[in-house]
């Protein structure tokens, strides 16, 4: 059963709706004791990374999150929180992945936010992209991205520069795109996560 970490950063209606469509049971985590009821966790998040980090700090759940050994999936800003630092609000983050979250340089050819369906290419064998063809499209909407890193990039996407569309370290996974809005492949990815 998936525990969604609740810290007040953005709406999760679409995410829970997707889990319900897929028949993936879930519940909400508000305090440390709640973690024990679940065998995997999602950190959602939209909006401003710095603001999201402040809200997460207020929950007091950070030491627990860092100590988790069961599978964890950060989505969008929930993924960016796993990195060391974001240029958004010059914010120090969880540092589970020692990489940086940077802002896209906007231009007429590469508009910001990066909005729409883009392809992602897994860099290594992994359980998250099982049954998802190389180069499948996912739905992105973000102005900040996680830098490409040979150790931690799980799949890369190109938008002006190559960046981490997803990351992986031990039990921690993160995706920049929105699997709950990414059609069939997004649903496959959520189902895969529920089985890791």
């Amino acid at each position, binding site marked *: 059963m998936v525990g969604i970490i609740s810290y007040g950063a953005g*709406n999760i*209606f*679409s995410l829970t709706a*997707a889990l319900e469509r897929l028949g993936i049971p879930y519940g909400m985590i508000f305090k440390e004791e709640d973690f024990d009821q679940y065998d995997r966790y999602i950190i959602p998040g939209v909006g401003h990374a710095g603001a999201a980090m402040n809200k997460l700090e207020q929950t007091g759940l950070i030491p627990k999150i860092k100590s988790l050994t069961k599978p964890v999936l950060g989505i969008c800003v929930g993924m960016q929180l796993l990195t060391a630092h974001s240029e958004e609000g010059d914010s120090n983050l969880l540092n589970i992945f020692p990489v940086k979250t940077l802002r896209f340089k906007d231009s007429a050819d590469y*508009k910001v*936010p990066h*909005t729409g369906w883009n392809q992602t290419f897994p860099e290594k064998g992994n359980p998250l992209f099982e049954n998802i063809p190389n180069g499948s499209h996912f739905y992105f909407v973000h102005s900040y991205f996680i830098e490409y890193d040979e150790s931690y990039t799980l799949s890369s996407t190109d938008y002006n520069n190559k960046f981490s569309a997803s990351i992986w370290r031990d039990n921690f996974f993160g995706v920049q795109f929105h699997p709950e809005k990414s*059609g069939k492949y997004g*649903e496959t990815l959520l189902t895969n996560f529920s089985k890791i």
Partner: protein
Amino acid sequence: MLSKRIIPCLDVKDGRTVKGVNFVDLRDAGDPVELAWNYSRQGADELVFLDITATHERRKTMVELVKSVARQVNIPFTIGGGINEIADADALLNAGADKISINSAAVRNPALIDELAKAFGVQFVVIAVDTRVSGDKNIVHLNGGRIPTEKETLDWILEAESRGAGEILLTSMDHDGTKAGFDNGLLKIINDAVHIPVIASGGAGSVQHFVDVFEKTNVDAALAASVFHYGEILIPDLKEVLRQNNIEVRTLAE
């Protein structure tokens, strides 16, 4: 590569689709949720719902609609129409809308764009602009193109971008309903002038019009209503032609 997006637009009143729709296989052509689901299956990349409900119950009706769509549909969608304040936007985003589209309210109160961008992030804020040629200028119009404003279209769009618009939905009222093609001249000027995504709207009548708008203006997305609703253009066929013209489109899962 980032794909060009194809966006069907649905007009909704009191929770029901209003423009005629004649899909085969639809149990209820007035049900926006069933229609949305059908479009997502055909390969629409995104949906826009334009709510034209005019009763005091409208926010409640819209929230219910948004929740129903978010429960059933696995692609992003925007909701527009009658969003006047932060509380409207908050309710719709919490119900599962991915973006909100603001038109008249932003023209009347441009600071609303700043407030929405600050409260929710620029990626949630679509500014819809209805433009019509008046004299030799492109002028922003309100109420479906009936009421001219003082604002020149390019100036207003640049102001909206600087205030925190995350995307522009530009409808040419001169082209809307003509099925003679998008307003590629204006769309290119706007698209070259901004660094946020632009959705072209108004004038789609054939598959070639979509090829033209992407090739001539490089906009990010193209929106249409009747050609999709009446089945005159089928999205899989449209995407195939775009692909043959080397325009990047999303590949669907089997």
